[in-house]
Every structure is written in structure tokens, then in C-alpha cells.
């Protein structure tokens, strides 16, 4: 009986996982979300920026990380547009331009933000640290034109923005190692404030930078998205997702407990 349980066909586990996702999608949960300190710190920082400040959002992720990072990007963009904080979007990840462009336009339309005045999307440039360092001298030397091919000199909001000196915060939404590159090449060298929203896979790596304040805040995956949505008072995909994730997390927890219980019983019998 025990060995049967432990040698369960993995497809049965797959079905259990599928059910644990399908059922809450059909019957959504609505559990209370507690905001963690690292997310609160990003919100507070942006919230205290005066109108007319500028933040740069680096969309350093591709379609495989969209479910986690798009809700974060949406929530932060909404917050910025509400606060009249100007946004410069850009990416160092080749698979990001289309998704970032679509997302910014969508939120801008919802909030009535104007391209070139309230936000600009610069697009993608290859060469991680080289692009970052070049923007430290002049953003236009790395991005002479924005994603729509408009020269930066013709974009009203870029008239008084030359380099990082005029940018109050860089928010890196990352699925890879770009946050560490931003910290290494931009944070110390240009005394630039950096925050990050990252996928679950790399959350743990970010904590040393949070303690040294090389990162002023951190949004961890789906959880971070749901926390930020709670802070701006617009629960959406992040909140929905983290609620729906609860049963799968519990299922995996239970599976591990069962697996270990069987393992200990078998080991005792063998002894």
C-alpha cells in the first residue's frame, strides 16, 4: 500500500495540480493580503515623489515571465500616472519590446497619460552594462530615438532629461540577472536609487542588496504584484493570481508531507 502510494503515477499528481488551479479559477478565492516591507518601501518612495518627477522602468523580461511581472508593471504605472510622475520605459531584454509597449499604451490609455509628455517608451538596445553606462553620460547616446522612431530631441518630456541625474528611481522588472547588473554598474557609480520587481525564481538572491539599500525595495513575483495592487487599491491579476495559487501551494505542501511520512514509516520498518 505504502510503496504503491510512493510510486504513484506522476500523471495523477499532474491531474491534482491541474484541479488545484482550475477549481479556484472557476470559483475565485478572496483572501486577505498582507503587504510586506520591501514592497511597501517601493510604494512609499514613489508615493512621496513630487509631481513631475521621473522614474525609469526597465522591462527586462519576456513572455515566460509576463504573468508575474506584467501585473507589477501595471500597478506601478497606474500609481505613477495617478501621481503625475513621468515614466521612461526601456528594456535590455530582446523579447520585451512588444509586450512592454503594449502594456504601457494600455495603462496610459486608461489613465489618460500622453505619450511624450507623461511617458515615453525607448525600446530595446543590445549590450547590458554598456547601455547602462552610456545612459549615465547621456540617454540619447544609447537611445537616439524612442520605440516609435521619434528623435529624443523632439519629445517634450525628454527636453530636461539628459542622464540619471534627472531620474529619481530606476525600477527593474526582471526575470534574469539584470537587477544585479543595474546595481553593479549604475547604483554605486551614479548614486542612482534602484528598486526591483522580480520573478519568484530570483527573489531569494535579492535580499543582500535590500539590506545594504542598494535596492530601495523589492516586489517578489505574484506576491509583490498583489501587494502593490492592494496598496494602490486596484486588485487585479496579481491579487487574483496569488489567491488562486493558494490551493496549489497547499497541495505541494501536503504532497511533501505525505512523501516524507511514507519515507519515515518505510525507514522504521526496514530498521
Amino acid at each position, binding site marked *: 500500500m505504502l510503496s504503491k502510494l510512493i510510486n504513484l503515477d506522476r500523471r495523477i499528481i499532474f491531474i491534482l495540480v491541474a484541479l488545484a488551479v482550475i477549481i479556484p479559477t472557476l470559483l475565485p478565492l478572496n*483572501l*486577505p493580503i498582507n503587504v510586506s516591507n520591501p514592497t511597501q518601501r517601493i510604494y512609499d518612495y514613489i508615493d512621496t515623489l513630487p509631481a513631475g518627477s521621473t522614474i525609469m522602468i526597465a522591462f527586462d523580461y519576456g513572455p515566460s515571465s509576463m504573468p508575474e511581472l506584467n501585473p507589477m508593471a501595471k500597478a506601478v504605472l497606474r500609481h505613477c500616472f495617478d501621481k503625475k510622475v513621468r515614466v521612461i520605459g526601456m528594456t535590455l531584454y530582446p523579447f520585451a519590446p512588444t509586450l512592454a509597449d503594449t502594456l504601457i499604451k494600455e495603462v496610459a490609455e486608461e489613465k489618460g497619460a500622453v505619450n511624450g509628455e507623461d511617458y515615453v517608451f525607448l525600446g530595446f538596445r543590445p549590450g547590458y552594462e554598456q547601455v547602462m553606462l552610456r545612459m549615465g553620460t547621456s540617454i540619447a547616446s*544609447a537611445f537616439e530615438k524612442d520605440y516609435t522612431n521619434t528623435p529624443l530631441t523632439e519629445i517634450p518630456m525628454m527636453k530636461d532629461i539628459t542622464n540619471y541625474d534627472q531620474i529619481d528611481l530606476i525600477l527593474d522588472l526582471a526575470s534574469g540577472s539584470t537587477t544585479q547588473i543595474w546595481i553593479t554598474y549604475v547604483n554605486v557609480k551614479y548614486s542612482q536609487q534602484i528598486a526591483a520587481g522580480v520573478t519568484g525564481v530570483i527573489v531569494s538572491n535579492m535580499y543582500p542588496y535590500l539590506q545594504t539599500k542598494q535596492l530601495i525595495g523589492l516586489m517578489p513575483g505574484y*506576491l509583490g504584484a498583489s501587494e502593490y495592487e492592494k496598496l494602490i487599491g486596484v486588485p487585479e491579476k496579481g491579487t487574483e493570481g496569488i489567491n488562486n495559487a*493558494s*490551493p496549489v501551494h497547499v497541495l505541494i505542501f501536503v504532497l511533501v508531507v505525505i512523501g516524507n511520512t511514507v519515507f519515515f514509516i518505510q525507514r522504521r520498518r526496514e530498521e
Partner: protein
Amino acid sequence: MKRQVPLVLCFLFGVVMCFTQFSPHQYSQAVYNEVINWALIMAPFALIFGTITLIQTHVTRIRRRIEHWQYSFVVFAGLLTMAFIGILFGPQDPAFEWLFNNVQVPLDATMFSLLAFLIASAAFRAFRARTFEATLLLIAAMIVLIGNVPVGDLIWNTVLSWLPWDNGASETRQWILGNPNLSARRGIILGVSLGVISQAIRLILGIERSYIGGGD
């Protein structure tokens, strides 16, 4: 010529980039900016070359009839469709965006979501508290796993309501990430950074020359 010149170039550019960063003199900064410009100019060539290499791999697969070689035609169909529309009409063309949103996005996202199933299965089969270290790993994993979702705090506040401590699941998760995890990660960062610096010095001095490869 084939080996010595690259070593000299590597040394020259390495030393120049290292030292110009310490000098605020205008000439030094001009050199620094110009060399970074050079790198930016070269970067897209590397990216395009990378994709050409992949195309070559699939051409070889078809030529040598390697198992499942027929699927390499699917690779070319996808590649040519995307590249043809993209190069001809630009990345902001509605057809290009439509293909990205309705073909590439679902493929990419679904491919990685398979791991959710595989992780669950692997956790059930292999995640065992066999040793003290494995037990620590398992306990930390389970606390973070359950602390990451709101149901964790709900269970804590219901089952352990007699404790004078609310939201224990998310608080404990936060403590693990911000304390023992932080120490371990910092140890790794320090170790890796020292490794990066020593490797960079070895590259500049030509001690590490594996990037040159074999041959003359």
C-alpha cells in the same frame, strides 16, 4: 596573428576600461565613452550572429537527417514568417504584434508553466528529510512556500490563533529570506565577485585564454 592580436586587444581594452573609470579628466572620459560606443556598435552583430548559428544547427539537422529532423522545417517556418513580416514592416506592424501575442507568448509561457507540474511531482518523489541538511532545506522551503500565499496566514491565524503572533506564515517567510537566506546569498555574492575579479584579471593578462579556442 590569429592568437597574439586577440590577446593584445583584450589586454589593451581591459586596461583602458579599467583605468579610465578612475580618471575624471576629459580626455580619459572621452576615451571611456568612445570605447563603450564601440562595444555598443559591435553588440548587435554578436546577437545576429548568435541567431545565424542556430539556423546553421537546424540546417545541419536536416542535412544529416538527425532524429526528428522534419521538425527543423517547423523552426524555419516560424523563423521566416516572423523575420519576413518583422524585417519588411517593422516590429510595430500589427501583423508582427499579432503573431507575437498569439503564437510566441502562449508558447513561451506554456513551455515554462510545465515546470509547475514537474516541480510538484519531483517534490512528492524526491524531497526527503534524509539528513540534517536536507531537513533544513525542506523546512525552509515549506515555510516560504506556504508563507508566499495568503492562505498561509489564514491557516496560521486560524490554527494557531492562541499564539500572540498574527500572520506568522508570512512573517516567518520574511525572516528566513531576510536573515539566514541573506547571509548565505551574501556569502555566495562575495565568493562569486572575488571569482569574477580574479577571472577578469586573468583575462586581461592573457592567463585565461579559453575564448580563443584551439588551433593556431
